[in-house]
């Protein structure tokens, strides 16, 4: 591959790089900077490095790779940048250029291979559900698992969620008919909900059926591709975007609903931004999907869910964590409004609710310690509220928050907004 081709990704963001005036405002908001306390870890530093890659002063070597890997793609720098520098796009482009130059890491290669194919994932999940207990032991008093043997990439203390015995999508038909005249909702399930936290999928289904909606779970849907993007594997992202497009276009629907902030972010923002910009033929179709995509909680509110009818009366004090992919999409008030209206639920705010939990896709794998350093602040904020449960809208955050709390020996429950909202109707079922 020629140097020009390798640099293509960087060329695309050349104009964006000029917007950065190195004021340093990103230092105040960047979770990676909080953890590393070094300038290459902050947005301003990454922009400077990208500028120097284009000038030819530095190459796509280990040091550049190391700096670019220190980003959670949380978008907080983008939110707060006085000059609207899209550092997330810049980091994605740099990671793509790095991957093209150096090849994907073994881990990211594996990620790409797995997420590219739901059949492989199904098999993996089956194997995980069966073999998991052999490799992991249950930790007393918690629902998580802890590795029996040291594993590469991960610390011994780390907690893993259990894989479901049967994936969510295998439990339900493709179309679940609702009442005539009620909205038709396409459910983009997402891998975590399908294979791990199936209860979130069940909650979503129960709630939309409660509203009389027809729920369609397109069989052809795949992973959204975000884990691949995290490693710079944009080819996989593009392939998955196209397959998802086909699967979602196969059905007539009013909305595309997702219970995962990350999947929502992919469909709503990243597909048009990362895939659409480079493939004008797909751009209009991706935009149509993006326009229809809506977060489950936002849609429930829009469709007039009365939480006081759906919530259970058992008193529960909860605090809410804003997933990054919600924050960047302006979703914050809607889930809180629903939670506040749910009978028996008391919502208390934590300090820094909109700060990243530290997961950041594969950041958590390569920089586990730093990821947990970021998470430590979150755990402390959650604990300070005295809540029984921390509630959020992203299964990825749920995994990270659970790991942090369990390691701190904290019994605070970690739940999805939909699980709280569906408590009563789930019981009635």
């Amino acid at each position, binding site marked *: 591959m020629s140097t020009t081709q390798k640099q293509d990704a960087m060329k695309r963001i050349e104009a964006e790089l000029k*917007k950065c005036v190195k004021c340093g405002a990103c*230092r*105040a908001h960047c979770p990676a900077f909080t953890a590393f306390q*070094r300038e*290459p870890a902050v947005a301003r*530093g990454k922009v400077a490095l990208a500028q120097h890659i284009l000038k030819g002063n530095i190459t796509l070597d280990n040091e550049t790779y*190391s700096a670019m890997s220190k980003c959670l793609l949380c978008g907080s720098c983008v939110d707060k940048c*006085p000059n609207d520098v899209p550092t997330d796009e810049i980091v994605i482009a740099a990671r793509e250029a790095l991957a093209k130059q150096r090849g994907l890491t073994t881990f990211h290669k594996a990620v790409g291979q797995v997420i590219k194919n739901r059949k492989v994932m199904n098999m993996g999940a089956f194997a995980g559900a069966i073999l998991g207990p052999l490799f992991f032991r249950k930790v007393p008093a918690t629902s998580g698992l802890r590795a029996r043997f040291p594993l590469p990439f991960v610390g011994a203390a780390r907690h893993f969620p259990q894989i479901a015995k049967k994936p969510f999508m295998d439990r339900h038909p493709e179309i679940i008919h609702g009442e005539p005249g009620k909205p038709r909702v396409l459910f983009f399930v997402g891998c975590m909900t399908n294979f791990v936290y199936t209860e979130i999928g069940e909650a979503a289904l129960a709630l939309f059926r409660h509203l009389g909606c027809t729920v369609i779970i397109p069989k052809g849907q795949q992973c959204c591709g975000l884990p691949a993007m995290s490693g710079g594997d944009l080819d996989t992202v593009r392939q998955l975007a196209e397959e998802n497009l086909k699967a979602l276009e196969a059905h007539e629907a009013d909305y595309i609903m997702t219970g995962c902030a990350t999947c929502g972010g992919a469909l709503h923002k990243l597909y048009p931004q990362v895939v659409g910009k480079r493939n004008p033929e797909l751009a209009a179709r991706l935009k149509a999907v993006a326009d229809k995509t809506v977060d489950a909680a936002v849609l429930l509110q829009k469709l007039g869910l009365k939480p006081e009818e759906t919530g259970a009366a058992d008193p529960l004090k909860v605090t809410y964590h804003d997933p990054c992919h919600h924050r960047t999409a302006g979703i914050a008030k809607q889930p809180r409004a629903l939670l506040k209206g749910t009978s028996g639920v008391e919502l208390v705010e934590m300090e820094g609710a909109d700060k990243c939990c530290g997961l950041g896709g594969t950041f958590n794998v390569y920089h586990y310690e730093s990821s947990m350093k970021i998470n430590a602040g979150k755990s402390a904020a959650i604990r300070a509220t005295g809540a029984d449960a921390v509630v959020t809208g992203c299964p990825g955050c749920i995994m990270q928050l659970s790991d942090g709390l369990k390691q701190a020996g904290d019994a605070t429950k970690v739940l999805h907004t939909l699980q709280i909202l569906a408590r009563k109707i789930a019981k009635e079922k």
Partner: protein
Amino acid sequence: MLDRQILEKIKAIVGDDNVATSTQDLICYGYDATQMEFLPDAVVHPGCSDEVASLVKLANQEGFPVFPRGAGSGFTGGALPKGGGIVLVTTRMNKVVRIDTDNLIAEVEPGVVTETFQIEVEKLGLFYPPDPASLKFSTLGGNVAECAGGPRAVKYGVTKDFVMGLEVVLPTGEIIRTGGETVKGVVGYDLTKLMCGSEGTLGIITSIILRLLPYPDAKKTMLAVFDSIDGAARAVSTIIKGKIIPTTLEFLDHATLVCVERRFKLGLPEEGRAVLLIEVDGDRDLIEKQAGQIRELIEPLGVVQFRVAQTAAESDELWRVRRLVSPSLRDVNPDKFNEDIVVPRSKVPDVIRKIEAIQNRYDIPIVNFGHAGDGNIHVNIMVDRSKEGQEEKAHLAIKEVFQAALDLGGTMSGEHGVGLSKQPFLPLELNTAQIAAMRAIKRALDPKNIMNPGKMLPLE
């Protein structure tokens, strides 16, 4: 260039993990908010004053320059490693050591972020007023070294007015303490004040004792739009003549008003020629009374719009007008030179008129806003660097702007300092004897000229 042996000695002082030499690291510590860039030979992150002292001693022995750096958010290149050497970063030294509620003082390390400190003291009902625009990310050490200001300076003063004492590693490596914890103290020269605003040329600040105040009971925010710049300026002096010292008197000129309004639609009348954001703080009843008095005082001066915030949210809304200035400027031109001249309060309209003339002469847009209460105006010369000749024009205009401020009895910098960018203009403001006196101080303290060399004073 630092040879391997010296690098090993540096590593022996701070540990391998705290020394970086990859080009990537050097790039990331070679810039600040000026758009200038110089690569150091190494980046060093010491963890305590003893390590700083050892590094400085080594620099004297081996003859390499040391460039102290906080958050690197300066506007004049004060922390840039021009000529190479080591960048000494203070961010690891970031502890609030103690807050003494009996004596209303606090001791902090230089790497503490200003806002972090403010939040800490506010939890105890205390107040640290200096509030540079960069307070969310700039460090207290950097604030002291540059003597940062901010909107509250009109009532409370600037950083140096809150620094009671310092621990400084001198350019020869000795650690000294200046000032102290007492309000009074007149023994010897006032080295504390000398260090404040010395831009890292006279030593490295390793500990700071700051004065605190009780947190004001309440505050009240108002916004007034005037039909003339003179009206706004007279409003400033009228309020102060009326024996009210507001916490803040922020000013936007017509060009700024139009910029903000077109981009963000905040309901400002475009026919307005100037905006004042006024805030008073203190006793709840008193500020209500003062807000009424202010309105009465300024209304006859051509006010076309007056808003008073009744709630914290409304106050935030009014502050947005000021906060959104920077993000909206890019609509004028992509690049800016941000200068921070000061003139006596009453001379603000004169300097604005002079700047308008400069703008017309050079045909480049100039947008002015800033702290009218203390006459500190941010003059933003907006250019497009990609267009030929614009940058040169800007430099000529900048010189004339400085001259205009000086002619009116002002100064060429209120809070950004001199650094590299204003260094060539220093002789406009300081005469030969003044510069010679400053050079004598520098030579006496830094005989080998290793401490942030080549900054502030014009090259000999």
